[in-house]
Every structure is written in structure tokens, then in C-alpha cells.
């Protein structure tokens, strides 16, 4: 990282020195000068590539606990940007090793397109995936039925969620395959 940061550091510092000599950092309006970043950028530039300590740190004593399968309402933060998904609601489950979160709504750039975004984390493998699946011109999607509770912590990750379209039709999201189909078990949507 920061192939060019050295230049920025020097430039920011130069601005800082000049502005300091001139008596301030004021900009148009209330916006502050990038020279304020100089000290922090210099800090980054000074970080070594080896640790002075070779003593291993203790690993955490306990492993993550499962998270019971649960619906996520509108008050729960969404990690997915509005440019990708206009979210209606979500659903989450974790068995302590793998975590699956599904967010339903409409495509950020086209509200006529129904979309779900699946966030999957595998802590043991150090992997996180984000996958968007479009349902076509369904309007926004809402999760209306899903496995819930502790009993579903493991099994739910390959189960299915029921989705309702803006027009009141129902679809099924197969979490194992990541495919959306019309109910009852119709052909996959285009």
C-alpha cells in the first residue's frame, strides 16, 4: 500500500509548514486543511515491517458461540451499501464456525428488481463471501418465513427462506444452492 503516500506526506507537511508560518489552516468555509493529516500520515510512514517483540500473544480462551437463527428488523444495521441493496429485512444464523446472513430487498440502482444479498463467513477458513442474487422484475423482496431459534443453528444454513414479492407472490430461496424459485417448487427465475 501507499506507493504514493510518501509524496502525500511530504506535500501535506509542506502545506502544514507553510500554513503554520502564515498563521493558520483555515479553508473556504469550515473545511480544514489536509495539512492536519500530516502527523498521522507521518505516523503511518514510520511503522516498521517487523515486530520488536517475538513473544507470542495468548490466543482467545473460548471459541465463538452459535447465534440462534433470527430475523433482522429495520432497526438492525445493514452491512450492504444502499447502492447494492435497498433492504427490507434480513435473517441471520451462526453455528459458531460458519455464519450466514441474508438481506432481502431491491437492487440499489433499480427498485423493480428483487434482490437478496448473502453474507457468509467461515471463521476457521478465514473466508467471507458476499453474493447478490437477483429475482428479476419482482419489486422489492421481503423475507416472510425462515427457520428460527437454537434448533436451527446448524441445519438452517442449507435450508430455505420464503420471500414475498412486491406484488404479493411468494418465492423460495434455497440457501444450499443460492437459487430463487417460484413456489411451489417451480422453475428457477431467469
Amino acid at each position, binding site marked *: *500500500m*501507499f*506507493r*504514493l*503516500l*510518501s509524496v*502525500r*506526506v*511530504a*506535500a*501535506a*507537511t509542506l*502545506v502544514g*509548514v507553510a500554513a503554520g508560518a502564515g498563521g493558520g489552516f483555515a*479553508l*473556504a468555509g469550515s*473545511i*480544514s*486543511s*489536509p495539512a492536519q493529516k500530516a502527523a*498521522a500520515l507521518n505516523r*503511518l*510512514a514510520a511503522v*516498521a515491517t*517487523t*515486530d*520488536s*517483540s517475538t*513473544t507470542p*500473544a*495468548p490466543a*482467545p480462551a473460548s*471459541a*465463538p*458461540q452459535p*447465534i440462534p437463527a433470527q430475523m*433482522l428488523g429495520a*432497526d*438492525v*444495521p*445493514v*452491512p450492504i*451499501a*444502499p*447502492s*447494492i441493496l435497498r433492504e427490507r429485512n434480513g435473517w*441471520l444464523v*451462526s453455528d459458531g464456525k460458519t*455464519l450466514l*446472513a441474508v438481506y432481502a430487498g431491491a437492487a440499489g*440502482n433499480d427498485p423493480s428488481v428483487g434482490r437478496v444479498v448473502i453474507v457468509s*463467513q467461515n*471463521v*476457521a477458513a*478465514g473466508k*467471507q*463471501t*458476499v*453474493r*447478490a442474487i437477483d429475482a428479476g422484475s419482482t419489486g422489492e423482496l421481503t423475507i416472510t418465513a425462515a427457520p428460527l431459534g437454537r434448533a436451527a443453528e446448524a441445519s438452517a444454513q442449507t435450508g430455505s427462506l420464503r420471500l414475498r414479492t412486491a406484488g404479493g407472490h411468494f418465492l423460495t430461496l434455497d440457501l444450499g444452492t443460492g437459487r430463487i424459485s417460484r413456489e411451489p417448487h417451480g422453475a428457477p427465475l431467469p
Partner: protein
Amino acid sequence: MRLLACTLTLATGLAWSATVASATQPVTAWYMYGSSGSDLKSYAYAHGCDFAQAEPGTGMRVLLLDFGAARKLDSSTWGAVDFSNTRFSNADILSALERAADGYHNCHVRGSVDIAYGNSNYHLSGSGMSSTDAWWAGFHQSERSEDLADYQSSKGYTSQTSDAASDMEPSWESPSVTKQLVSGDQAQGWALYYDFGSADGCPQSGNADGACNNGWHVSDVGYVSYAALALPLPEIYYTANANQWTVVRKWWNANAQGTYFFLGVTASTGVGLTPTASWAALNSLNNGLVESELACFGC
């Protein structure tokens, strides 16, 4: 002049520390989920270790841990509500950040890391937070980042430093409240404040202070991404995003002091542009003004 000389010396030492080959290789950024502080620490430790093992090149990379929406938990406690709807105090988050530092140290192979305490502006006022509360959220976020730096220093983790970050999305909160995150961070004074949010709804051409979503303007995005200690690490998921951020950069350069540059980009998989294409899209419109960081949710 001594400062300048020192800086130039540092600059020379750093200038080519990262190879071009590794410059735009993505590193994983993590959404944080957990049902307890203990969970959060375990996940953070694993993320720090995984990050170190996979870190490309010998330069510095940002380990971005997104703890969810900034929140005021009670009259004197700030923190975040994570993506599993669990509320964590800043003390919990600092403990998790320290475990991430431990994990990186134990698994360190090459290079260095800037561990960033990330949050978002998701529905701050909707949760009851005032502008003053948001200011304190930014202040304490920077404070905890400095606490993490103290921890890193005390442990001899000299390949590490720490900063703050926020997914500031125009659609999620008003500009007036969101700006307070940046102002609070500035007032505390430690942490660079990486904006890994969007310029949603902003114009895709020109350099005027046009309107964006939710009452925001281009100048507001400029403020939260480049004023004070803020640095842009914008979400580039579509070419439209690169266009919007280019307008922000042009507005800044036409109306404010200093040359706006990007720390890099935040990308994702499974939608729109690939991570490498995301970085290239922004760089093609802002050649020479995009640093090589490529934080990726989903890589």
C-alpha cells in the same frame, strides 16, 4: 525545516517499500457479528491472524473491521450495535481490536498493518443520537484507536498502527449529524478517519456542489471524506460510483485547500465490478491520485 527534512527522509524510505505487483491485490475487510464480547474477541483474533497470513507484498495494508452502527449505549457509554443486533461498548470493541492485534502479531509474515476501528452512520438520529452524541461517538472512536496504538506499542507490535473508519452513507443519516463523526475524531486528534462509504445519488459529471441522496451535497461528501483527518476509501461497486467520487474530488480541488487524493477503494465480490476493476475504474478517472489500498468485503 527540521520537520520537512525528517519527513522527506521518511518518505524516501517508504517510497518503494511496497511492490507494484502487490499494489492492488485485495485484502479482506470484515463485517463483525457476535453474540457476546467474548465472541467478538475470538472473531477479531481470527481475522487478525488470517489477514497476516494472507497479506500480499511488504507494504502497509488496512485491516478494516466494521463493528456496525455507532451508538450511544447509555448516558456515558458509546459503542456500536453490530450486524447481529448486539450492542457492544467501546471497551468491548477495544478488547476485540487488541485481539486482532494479537492475531496479526502471532501470524505475521511480512509487511505491516493499520488496524481500523470501523463503524457506520446507520440511523444515528433514528436511534436517538443527537449531533452532539455523534460528535462524541467520533471522539471516542479515535480515542479507542489511540488506546489500541498504546497497546500495540506496549506489546512490541512495531509492525502495527491503528486508525478509525466509517461507512458513511448519505442514505442512512443526514449530513449534519454524520459530519459530527469526523469533527469528533478531529477533536480527539489521533486517528485518520477512513471513509469507506458512498456518494449515493451524487452527480456523475462536473465539479459543482450538486445534490445527492437524503439532503446531502457533493460538498458534504467532500467534508466527511477529506476534511480534517478524513481520508477517502470509497465504495466502488459500479462505474457510476467512480464517476460520483471523481466529482467529489474535483469539487474539493476547485473549492478547498490541498489536493484531494484517495487512499484506495473499498470493493466487494458478487456484485458489479470485481475488486481489481473497482480500483482501476477510480484510478482511470483520477490517475495518480489513487493510493493502492484495496479493502474488500467478500474477498
